[in-house]
């Protein structure tokens, strides 16, 4: 059974129509002790089917350790939203409920390279000189 309804798919297609550059979703899972890995894989399959510019690549955290290290992934399920050189937006846990919208936003952001932030915010971020890791904790709604 599909996780996305016909109505969902329509809205997702509309959002993805704003994409510019191709986006690759790098998905890390494992076969054991990961209840949400399978549903996550299913929602990602349904998502990438809705745009020619969107692709999915799956790795196993336990086997593809070099890939996991490359993307800084140490838990599953994990999704890294990448486009060209841009690969620093990640999701840990299943993208259910509102988090699916966040994932969709991240895809479009990476694809356009346009943060949509204000001039003031951009100026502040231009002054960042050291690596910054921003972790946002959320719960599904």
């Amino acid at each position, binding site marked *: 059974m599909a996780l996305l309804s016909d109505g969902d798919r329509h809205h997702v297609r509309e959002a993805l129509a704003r994409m510019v550059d191709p986006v690759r979703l790098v998905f890390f899972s494992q076969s054991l002790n990961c209840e949400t890995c399978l549903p996550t894989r299913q929602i990602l399959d349904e998502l990438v089917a809705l745009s020619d510019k969107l692709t999915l690549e799956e790795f196993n955290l336990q086997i593809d350790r070099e890939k996991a290290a490359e993307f800084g992934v140490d838990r599953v399920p994990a999704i890294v939203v990448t486009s060209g050189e841009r690969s*620093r937006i*990640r999701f840990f846990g299943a993208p259910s409920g509102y988090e699916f919208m966040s994932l969709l936003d991240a895809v479009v952001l990476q694809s356009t390279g346009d943060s949509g932030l204000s001039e003031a915010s951009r100026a502040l*971020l231009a002054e960042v000189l050291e690596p*910054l*890791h*921003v972790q*946002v904790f959320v719960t*599904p709604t």
Partner: protein
Amino acid sequence: MAVESALVTATTVEANEFPDLITRYAVSGVPKTIVNEQVEILGALPESQFIPKALAGGPEA
């Protein structure tokens, strides 16, 4: 932020799935943002407040 600066990594964590991280960062409510293990922002703030705070390296005065 991660789109704007090559130095920024943005991670969204589904808190219920990772109780070890809830404990580690004392997540008592969501959204909660942790920047470089130092800055904590509880709740959703407008961009004009969130970004200065996230970059400040300390709690808001």
